[in-house]
């Protein structure tokens, strides 16, 4: 780890100020990706702005029929929160299977989606449930938020404050974990409700994407059987030592059926 200046602001405004004053600053949520990267000297920011001291960024509430999760809410909290488990059990289950207990008790939803790791679970939750990302500047639909490999629509000085999830009629998440890292080789969130019928896939491509053919297939009825003929193309899917693009494409089908079957 190389030296950097550490900031722990008390408000979003102070965080933005610290960031803009830095020559090469970075925000830190739970630090579950940033800290290992720093330790391995793969990143060497001049300033680290820790959002852990910002009041009001953590916690879960209901707001106008939506479940609102503060950006600094940990995965463990999402997994066990009474509102989430009652309204969107698929989201609670997804959060409860991220990483390991240490990661779930440190890692945050805001940190995860800002990083937009192609194998992370939360991007599938946001897109698959039709969520909205709230920042200090605006609201961004999940469909527009995740723009590419480790890329998001966040602008300079923009800080995620919360994620608002509409409550689906039915939703399910199925994940095929990488046996080593337990990140998603393929993860599929399928839902139907006020945000329409959605099938969002993480892990398989460079960035979370919606499987439109599967969404159409589910239009006639939200059941696993409806998906029997639907598939995704292996073109442009990831291929690595753990899974080829062809295998990932196959798994998208299997996980989509399992997600729908599991939907409560």
């Amino acid at each position, binding site marked *: 780890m190389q030296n950097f200046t550490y900031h722990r602001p008390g408000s979003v405004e102070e965080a933005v100020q610290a960031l803009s004053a830095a020559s090469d600053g970075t925000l830190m949520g739970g630090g579950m990706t940033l800290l290992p990267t720093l330790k391995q000297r793969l990143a060497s920011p001049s300033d680290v702005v820790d959002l852990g001291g910002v009041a009001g960024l953590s916690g879960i509430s209901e707001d106008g029929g939506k479940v609102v999760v503060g950006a600094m809410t940990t995965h463990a909290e999402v997994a066990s929160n009474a509102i989430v488990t009652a309204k969107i059990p698929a989201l609670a289950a997804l959060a409860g299977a991220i990483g390991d207990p240490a990661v779930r008790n440190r890692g945050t939803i805001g940190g995860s989606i800002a990083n937009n790791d192609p194998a992370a679970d939360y991007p599938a939750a946001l897109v698959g449930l039709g969520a909205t990302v709230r920042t200090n500047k605006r609201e961004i639909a999940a469909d527009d938020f995740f723009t590419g490999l480790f890329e998001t629509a966040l602008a300079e000085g923009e800080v995620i404050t919360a994620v608002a999830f509409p409550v689906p009629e039915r939703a399910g998440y199925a994940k*095929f974990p990488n*046996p*080593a890292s337990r990140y998603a080789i393929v993860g599929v969130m399928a839902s139907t409700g006020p945000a329409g019928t959605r099938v969002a896939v993480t892990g398989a491509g460079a960035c979370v994407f919606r499987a439109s053919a599967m969404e159409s297939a589910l239009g006639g009825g939200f059941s696993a059987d409806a998906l029997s003929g639907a598939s995704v193309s292996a073109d442009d899917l990831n291929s690595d030592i753990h899974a080829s693009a062809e295998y990932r494409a196959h798994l998208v089908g299997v996980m989509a059926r399992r997600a729908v079957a599991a939907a409560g």
Partner: protein
Amino acid sequence: MTDTGIGASVRRKEDNRFLTGRGRYTDDINRTGQAYACFLRSPHAHAKIDGIDTGAAKNAPGVIAVLTGDDVAADGLGGIPCGFAPTGVQAPHNAPPRPALVQGKVCFVGDLVAMVIADDLNQAKDAAELIQVDYQELPANVDPAKATDSSTTRIHEAAENNLYADWGLGDKEATDQAFAQAHHVTKIDLINNRQIPNAMEPRCSIGEYDQADESYTLYTTTQNPHVTRLLLAAYVLQIPEHKLRVVSADVGGGFGSKIPHYPEEALVTWTAKKVGRPVKWTAERSESFLSDTHGRDHVTRAELALDENGKFLALRVHTSASLGAYLSTFGAMSTTYLYAPVLSGQYIIPAIYCGVTIVFTNTAPIDAERGAGRPEATYLVERLVENAARETGIDRIEIRRRNFIPEDAFPYQTPVVLAYDSGNYAPILDKALEMADRAGFETRNADAKSRGKLRGIGFCTYIEACGIAPSNVAGAIGAGIGLYESAEVRFAVTGAVTVFTGSHQHGQGHETTFAQIVADRLGVPFDSVDIVHGDTARVQWGHGTYGSRSLAVGGSAIAVACDKAIEKGKKVAAHLLEASVTDIEFKDGNFTVSGTDQSKSFGEIIAAAMVPHNFPLDEMEPGLDQRSFYDPKNFTFPAGCHICEVEIDPDTGVVKIVNWTAVDDFGKIVNPMIVEGQIHGGVAHGIGQALLENCVYDPESGQLLTGSYMDYCMPRADDLPNFNLGFTETPCPHNPLGVKGCGEAGAIAAPPALINAVIDAIGVDIDMPATPEKVWRALQSRPQAAE
């Protein structure tokens, strides 16, 4: 049996400090004034170095020294030596040198280019980033089967065609003749996948130099401190052995990767004198992946010849085995004499020939990993046996029974050097089949089918050769050391017993097991016995721990030393009891005059020997301390049967292990709880290899693709089944304890049992590891998939 003697599941003494965070690991040691080292490692798998500019690094804050291969050469340091050169080599026998820091070229990703020593670790790392190295990249090869191709770039000047040696064992002519007469030949091509041992504790070394008496101390994570002292003192530093002390206190796992003498150990010791301060280096996990020795990495073609009754006639094997980029301390042992001699398994195979093409590749050096050669041999034999059964239509159990070495054939001379001392295989198999409920498999299979799952059952009946080794055999096969073990038993006036053992514990529980042996042998309280190991200044001599040798060889040395103390004690007792020594009997800690109630306890004899006011001083010296250098008469031959049952999800290819039964014959068992733990760990290790763990280098660039736990999959608790364990007991006839050894058995038995179960479920051959995608693809390749 007492509650602390042989056969008792005594809780491990050492766990008190391990579980309360009071272990004494090398990284816990900090010496006054110590400096910190970090190493600049090669980012390339194969490259010439045209120049190294250390100027900026030397001037960086806190930097004490920056050293390269030129400095190593200027000081006349010897290369890192190899401790084993196999005999029986056809030709040639190429042993290229390995300087402690590279000189002119790098041969694998992680090779040591430069060493930076600074006041603190971050300063050393900052400075290492300032070193400029002018690399000229060369084509790299990571595949043992391609190493000798004419198109493959040569790695070492001293090894033409990247060949270390072409080695063979067995009667080739007789084997070929048997194949010519065979009724059926079963052939197999397989890869024994490269593994990274991944000890929990990364390597760590601290060098120190004492100007007052011109001596060095090396604190290091090694399984064999005396062997490390010999190699480092005599070959690298070229100083008298007594001027180097090696301390290896608590070590957090080794699995073979802490046997070799590593260049980092030599470098911190050398530089401690050079910079006048202790020098400490602790590997980061990324460095462990890159630079710890790896295991396995075989590419093999094998054939089994059978007659019309399914009897084995002959076995013919050719293996291309990698040594990695350099010869590690015992690298060539795992690929030769720990491999081919166990190819006879539990079977009568009249003719066997095994040829091994041993090569260099642009990868981390290979050395022993739990089992070292024996897992590779067992995997191929047991895969062949089940394939032969399928091809001939003979039941997989029946074909084994037909070919087992019968109980009355022991001692049994195999055609590949080893003479098995003892064994009784059929009862092991019977017990395992019953415990695994083989008879109920079809019912379970039908149930699995109704749930859409594919169920399979696989078997492995293995033998192991461990308790290495008789020193004359060690010499005959090419070892540079003897392989006896030493023990010293010392007695305090008040009765306490301290045992100094040359075995080394790094997780095995020796402090408990060895104390049980002493308590049992001498009849003294278990709590009065302490075991000392891991310090060349305290322990007389030792060869360390590997090859499941600690109990059979190290434990036997302790037993013999105890017996010597008993013999002397009888003379003391005879004097005290005014009886003839021939009338003194020793039992349960008491010396008794035969046929009387006159007796003296062991404690009383210790006191009389240590405070010899009433002692036969004319006949013998006071004191009772004894020492043994125990040289085993043969290897030991544990055997067993493991049965694995799997269920496979055909949609994803995921293999779930649903049942695991292991019946093992380890001879006498000292501590059943510790033995069960060793089986659990060994089987987990083997399951890791068969299902999860795979070291992958990029075939083009030679980069390590599995360089962290994000990509290298270690088995976790939820990957493992419950283990159903049983034991039979055929005591070893040639050591004083009747013990055989158990540390490696699970890692040997598990891979074939598991892969055989997967093949039974899916109906097609598959290589390790049986990852979900591989299994899914195999299922797609089945003819019925098209239906």
